[in-house]
C-alpha cells in the first residue's frame, strides 16, 4: 500500500452563514485549492461527507453537494459519517488509483431542526421513536450509569465543558465563544437530567476540506505533511437496551488503529487528541476507552489537568464538538484539527508541546454506537 498524507486544510468561520449551502461549500473548496495551488481539474477525485435528508432538507446530494465541492465530471463518493469519507479518499490513494483526493464535509445546522428531533429518527418507528428516545436521552442514561458504576461526579463531567469552551476562545473557527465556569455549567438547565444544557453540543454550520496526496505528490505540495498511520472503526448492535453502554466499540476501533500505527502505549505515544464529545461526560469515557487512563479513571484524568491545552496529553484544543457541532462534518473537523496540530498551523490553539502523533476520533448513533479512530503522524 502507498503512503498517504494530508497536505492542506481549510474550514469555514464558526459563525452561522446566510449563504446558500452550495455557495457556503464552494468558498472553502476554492480556498483549499488556492492554498495548494491546484486547479479543480488537477485533483484526482473528490469525496463528500454530508447528510442530505434530515441534516439538510434540501434535496439529493447530487444537486447541492456535488456542485459546491466541485465533484462534477469526476469519480466521487459520499458518506454521512465524514471520517468514512476521509478513509474512502485515503484508500483511493493507497491503492494507486489517484495521487490527490479532496475530501469535504458540509452542513448548515442553522437551517434544519434541532438535533433531538433529528436523532429521534435514528430510532426505529415501531418501538424507540414513539417513546421519544433520541441521542440526548440515551447519552443521559449512559451518564447516570457511568457516574454510578465508577463514582465519577457531575462536577468532573461538567469540567469537560469548562475546558473545551475555554479552548474554543482561541480557535477562530469555533462556533460557541464564551468563557464559562463550573458553576455556570452546573446551574444550566437540566434538560435531560443528569445532563445539563451546557454539557450538550450546539448545532453549527460548518464546511471543512482536507486535501490528501500520495507520498511523492505530498512532498511536492507541502513541507509539513500529516501522514495517515492508522485507522480503525467498529459498529455496535443497534438496540441500546441490548448493549453495555459503558463498554461499546471504541476499544475495538482504537485497537485496530493502534495496531496499524504500531502504537503500544497510547498515553505516551499520542501527543494530542481531537475527540468527538457531543456530551461532556463522553470525553471522559472515550479517553478511558482510548487507553489514556484506566477504566473508571476519567474523572481523575480531567482533575489532573493532563488534558488541558498545556498538559501532557491535550484533548480537544480546538474546543471540540461542545464548541462546534456541524453534525455530519464534525468527524472530519477532528481529522483536520489533528492535522493542523502536526503541521504547527493551529494558530492560537496550537498546543504547548511538540506534536509528532495526533489522534482524531468520531462517533455517531445512540450512546456512541459507531466509533472511528484516525492516527496521523509528522
Amino acid at each position, binding site marked *: 500500500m502507498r503512503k498517504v498524507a494530508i497536505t492542506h486544510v481549510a474550514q469555514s468561520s464558526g459563525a452561522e452563514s446566510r449563504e446558500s449551502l452550495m455557495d457556503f461549500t464552494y468558498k472553502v473548496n476554492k480556498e483549499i485549492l488556492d492554498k495548494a495551488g491546484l486547479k479543480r481539474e488537477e485533483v484526482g477525485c473528490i469525496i463528500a461527507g454530508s447528510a442530505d435528508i434530515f441534516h439538510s432538507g434540501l434535496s439529493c446530494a447530487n444537486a447541492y453537494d456535488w456542485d459546491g465541492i466541485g465533484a462534477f465530471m469526476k469519480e466521487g463518493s459520499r458518506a454521512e459519517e465524514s471520517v468514512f469519507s476521509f478513509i474512502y479518499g485515503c484508500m483511493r490513494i493507497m491503492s494507486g488509483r489517484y495521487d490527490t483526493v479532496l475530501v469535504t464535509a458540509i452542513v448548515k445546522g442553522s437551517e434544519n431542526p434541532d438535533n433531538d428531533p433529528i436523532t429521534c429518527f435514528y430510532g426505529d418507528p*415501531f418501538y424507540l421513536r414513539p417513546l*421519544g428516545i433520541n441521542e440526548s436521552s440515551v447519552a*443521559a442514561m449512559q451518564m447516570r450509569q457511568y457516574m454510578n458504576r465508577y463514582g465519577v461526579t457531575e462536577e468532573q463531567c461538567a469540567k469537560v465543558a469548562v475546558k473545551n469552551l475555554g479552548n474554543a476562545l482561541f480557535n477562530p473557527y469555533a462556533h460557541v465563544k464564551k468563557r464559562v465556569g463550573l458553576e455556570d455549567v452546573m446551574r444550566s438547565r437540566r434538560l435531560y437530567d443528569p445532563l445539563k444544557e451546557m454539557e450538550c453540543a450546539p448545532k453549527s454550520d460548518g464546511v471543512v476540506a482536507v486535501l490528501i496526496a500520495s507520498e511523492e505528490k505530498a512532498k511536492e505540495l507541502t513541507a509539513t505533511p500529516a501522514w495517515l498511520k492508522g485507522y480503525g472503526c467498529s459498529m455496535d448492535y443497534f438496540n441500546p437496551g441490548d448493549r453495555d453502554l459503558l463498554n461499546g466499540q471504541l476499544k475495538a476501533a482504537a485497537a485496530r488503529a493502534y495496531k496499524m500505527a504500531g502504537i503500544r502505549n497510547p498515553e505516551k505515544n499520542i501527543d494530542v487528541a481531537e475527540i468527538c464529545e457531543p456530551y461532556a461526560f463522553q470525553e471522559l469515557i472515550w479517553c478511558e476507552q482510548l487507553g489514556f487512563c484506566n477504566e473508571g479513571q476519567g474523572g481523575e484524568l480531567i482533575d489532573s489537568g493532563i488534558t488541558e491545552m498545556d498538559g501532557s496529553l491535550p484533548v480537544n484544543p480546538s474546543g471540540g464538538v461542545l464548541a462546534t457541532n456541524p453534525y455530519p462534518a464534525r468527524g472530519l473537523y477532528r481529522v483536520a484539527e489533528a492535522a493542523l496540530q502536526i503541521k504547527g498551523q493551529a494558530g492560537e490553539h496550537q498546543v504547548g508541546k511538540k506534536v509528532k502523533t495526533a489522534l482524531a476520533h468520531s462517533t455517531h448513533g445512540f450512546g456512541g454506537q459507531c466509533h472511528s479512530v484516525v492516527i496521523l503522524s509528522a
Partner: protein
Amino acid sequence: MSIEKYKIVEGQVKVTYELALGRTWSHFYDCFKEGKIMGTRCRKCSRVLVPPRSFCPRCFEDMDEWVEVSDEGIIETWVYVNMPFFAQETKIPFISAQIRLDGCDSGFTHIVGGVDMSDLDKVRAAVKLGGRVKAVWSREKKGSIRDIEYFEPVK
C-alpha cells in the same frame, strides 16, 4: 453588490411511508394487545430478547422460540426528560428508562410514571437504579408500544 436582507424560504415536508413490522414484531404487538410481553430465545446463546428478534444480533442465528417474560423488572438506568422537541409524543417532563424485565436478557426501553414529577428531588427519591417497576397497561390496547402506559415503582 450589497444585500440589505438575505431571503429565506421556509419549508416543511410531509410524506407518507408504509413500514412493515414483519412477522416477529407483528406477533409481539398482537400479544401486547392481550397484556402479554413476549420475547424470543436464541438457539445458540440462549439469551431472551425483548423486543423479540427473528435472529440474534450477536450470533446471527435464528431466534424462533417464543418466551413470555414478566411485566415487572428493575431499572438499569433512567433519564428525566424536560426538553420539548418536535414530534415528541409524550408530554414533558417524563422519565425514559431501560428496564430489565424478569426472565429477559436485555434492557427494555420504556417510560416510568406514577411518580410525583413536580421536582427533581422527589423524582430521585422515587426512581432509583436497581429499583423495581411494574407495567401499567392501557385500558384500550391497540397493539403498539403505548399499550403499556408506563412502568410504576413497586411499593
